[in-house]
């Protein structure tokens, strides 16, 4: 049990439970766990007011490893549990951990609804593009043609984009990170935490056993930087290991394009990231390799009232004593029957 230590700044150890971590050696989940723990330290989280909620999957084992309150629920339903928790006690800081199967296959609808309702929580989707825990079947994000035990001839289903779905559902905060890019992840998570309302963060995660290397192109030293762009609000969209590429809008095609930023290039045409613009966010979220860089960081942030605040604001949470309850039961027409059995209206 962890007793809160309010005086000194906490360390990662303060957010580590006594349970042995049981992911496969080399699994990307380890890196994400570290990044989350680091974020908890950075934001000075109170372990006693923090709750990690998850569904089922390798990713969903996460709560057991963090020494806060934790609830490992059932497959796909974590957003509903988290909504109940938050409506019941809006003071709690809720983190939802889910996988691509958990969030986008069985749990797709709950994800959509928690996002559109904008319940205040951080939703971290560990996307390894595979069902890890059940031994490697293709998931809704698996690239078409992938051979797995349930798709021996290669999968036929077109993959979903988690971020496009989130935007389509009306999410007010959408971000993306990668397990191996440890430097960026805590910052993205802290932004998600700072956002009041549902914050959706897709984290590319390597499943070393069943889908090894699917994100390698994005993370490989040197080359990776040519295939990803870290977005920053108000900053021009520049990327590449030599920061020699940029994004512009082709007005005719109404589409993004990569331009080379050779010496003396016209950087005026470069798009400047506006994280409040949903059209831009959708175009950025849709970018895919090999021609386009994959967008990382905060794609969209456009806060609105959070659900649990609006709901609880309309309620009276004062203690309800027997007198008030008695009065409630007696609203409307009542009558009294006397000892003689005759009634009198009341």
């Amino acid at each position, binding site marked *: 049990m962890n007793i809160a230590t309010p005086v000194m700044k906490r360390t990662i150890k303060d957010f580590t439970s006594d349970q042995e971590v049981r992911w496969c050696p080399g699994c990307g989940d380890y890196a994400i766990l570290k990044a989350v723990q680091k974020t908890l330290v950075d934001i000075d989280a109170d372990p006693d007011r923090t709750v990690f909620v998850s569904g089922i999957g390798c990713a969903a084992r996460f709560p057991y490893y963090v020494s806060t309150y934790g609830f490992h629920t059932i497959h796909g339903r974590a957003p509903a549990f988290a909504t*109940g928790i938050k409506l019941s006690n809006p003071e709690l800081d809720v983190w939802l951990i889910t996988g691509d199967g958990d969030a986008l296959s069985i749990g797709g609808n709950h994800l959509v609804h928690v996002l559109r309702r904008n319940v205040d929580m951080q939703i971290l989707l560990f996307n390894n593009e595979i069902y890890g825990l059940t031994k490697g079947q293709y998931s809704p994000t698996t690239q078409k043609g992938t051979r797995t035990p349930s798709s021996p001839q290669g999968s036929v289903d077109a993959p979903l984009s988690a971020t496009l779905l989130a935007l389509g559902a009306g999410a007010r905060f959408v971000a993306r990170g990668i397990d191996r890019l440890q430097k960026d992840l805590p910052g993205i998570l802290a932004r998600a935490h700072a956002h009041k309302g549902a914050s959706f963060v897709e984290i590319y995660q390597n499943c070393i056993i069943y889908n090894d290397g699917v994100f390698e192109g994005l993370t490989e030293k040197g080359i990776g930087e040519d295939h990803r762009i870290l977005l920053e609000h108000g900053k021009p969209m520049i990327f590449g290991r030599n920061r020699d590429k940029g994004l512009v809008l082709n007005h005719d095609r109404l589409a993004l394009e990569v331009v080379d930023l050779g010496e003396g290039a016209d950087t005026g045409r470069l798009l400047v990231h506006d994280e409040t613009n949903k059209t831009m966010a959708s175009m950025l979220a849709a970018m895919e390799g090999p021609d386009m860089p994959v967008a990382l960081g905060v794609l969209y942030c456009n806060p609105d009232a959070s659900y649990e605040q609006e709901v609880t604001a309309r309620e009276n949470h004062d203690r309800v004593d027997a007198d008030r309850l008695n009065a409630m039961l007696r609203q409307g027409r009542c009558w009294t*029957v006397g000892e003689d059995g005759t009634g009198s*209206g009341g």
Partner: protein
Amino acid sequence: MTDLQVATAGNTASSRRKLDSVVVRFAGDSGDGIQVTGGQFTLATALAGNDLATFPDYPAEIRAPVGTTFGVSAFQIHFGDRSVKTAGDAPDTLIAFNPAALKVNLPRLPKGGLLIVDEGSFNERNFKKAEITANPLEDGSLDDYNLIRIDITKRTLEAVKPYGLSQKEGVRCKNFWALGLVYWLYDRDPAPTEEWLKAKFRNNPKIAEANIAAMHAGHAYGETMELDGFGAYTVPPAPIAPGQYRTVTGAEAMAWGLVVAAGLADKEMMFASYPITPASVILHHLARLSDYRVTTFQAEDEIAAVCAAIGASYAGSIGVTSSSGPGIALKGEALGLAVAVELPLVVVNSQRAGPSTGMPTKTEQADLFQAVFGRNGDAPMAVLAVRSPGDAFDVAVEATRIALTYMTPVMILTDGYINNAAEPWKIPDVRNMVAIDAPYHTQAEGFHPFARDPETLARPWAIPGTPGLAHRIGGIERDALTGNISYDPANHQKMTDLRAAKIRGIANSYGPLEMAAGKPGAALTVVGWGSTYGAVNEAVQDLIGEGADIAHVHLRHIWPLHPDLGDVLRRAGRVVVPEMNNGQLLTLLRSEYLIDARPLDQVTGQPFRIGNLKAAFRRHLEA
């Protein structure tokens, strides 16, 4: 509380014929205001000191075309000078507002019954809509009834003329004209209805006055006309226990019971639900009670609803979820989680006719198996059943008490009939109710999330936000002390046994098993549950009155069964189990007690008739 003094009923017209009990049925088009009429008649009857029971009979369609048979709405009320428990097998008086209503409802009226029809609506257009070829008022088909034809439409229009309503608005008042007539007929006081109309149409006094005028006109019509076979009656008040009363529907009582239980536990309540007939009405009631520490959450589906409720319980509220059969089916997986992690939860199932979508507006008791057995794994669950509208209040309180005391989900079985039917209800004084204690835990020292109370076997409720108690729970089997994941075979056996023992132990909290009628050891013991209570009880009481050796046990506790039940049943000569299903409680009783209990099943979507039950019981008594 509205304090209004009305004349005590029964002391006007002494020339009236006395009746000990009467069944009145109003029937008309969905747009005719039948349910409002019934509601007002109910109130007036309650104020007259009668005991009563009602049965609103809605059409399945939202709003069928005017005048069609499938758009007919009806309301039946049974009232008397003694305990009344059902809306009655058959009406003594039927008021039919149009040909379709007559067509649909006439089969219920016994020969010789009083039949009042609005002659004004008996025209070719309405015959066609009702798919009637000949005018029943003319073709002799009503000869066997005590028929009163009145052009209610016309008389209503005359009565409301002074108020300058449109034709359509004027015609709409005809239900109050008819109500006035029936008030005269059965000696009810129209004053409360006047008041109600004034309050209801506060912003449109013209409408209020027109309706009042129509009602008075109907009343006056009764007084002034002396028609053959149409006399005035009075039903003396029933001997009713002293106290404060109101009418409640089952849905209201359920909503209030839940709120009061939360108050008794000094906790917030989170009611999460997805609309479904006939359960939604409970959600609607609670949605209006946000002043009483109630949050209602209309989820995206039933699974989300139960999960949100469990989440709320986890976070320290009383989680409640509510649905009907198909929606409860969807909750099965999550209910298993609630059983496994041992969190309190109340699940209200307003049963309807199945299987599958079935007949959503019709009543059935066929979800007992689902409640007791419908989960994967050994996942025992406490199950309580409601027997009448007012009983819903008590069951809601008891279910919440069990859920919190034992840290476990509890399912309540009620049904659409109970939810919508009304009866007079003695309002409890909450100050006299016992507070509900849950095993809250706040002590960090030596805390273990699955350490148990040795008596109840409940685990502690350590609510997120409590300093020093941070811990993890989940659906994978938990160590019997720490709650950490455990695959240890002995631990799994231990936890399975503990879960079963905890639920069995709930039976220790029950009050004594009361006989609903008769005594243990009777030649025939009838075991009922749920909304058949009234019909079964009246049937048994009648037979006892006739000298039969028969008894009635009515179960509130479906699982675990009452510890004394086995004894009672083994002492019984023969045991019969009337159910609106194919023998579900029967299966439980047979397997638990190895007694050769016999089924008495009716799966028609209609409540049992007392007459049919009596006949069946007699057969068993003679067998």
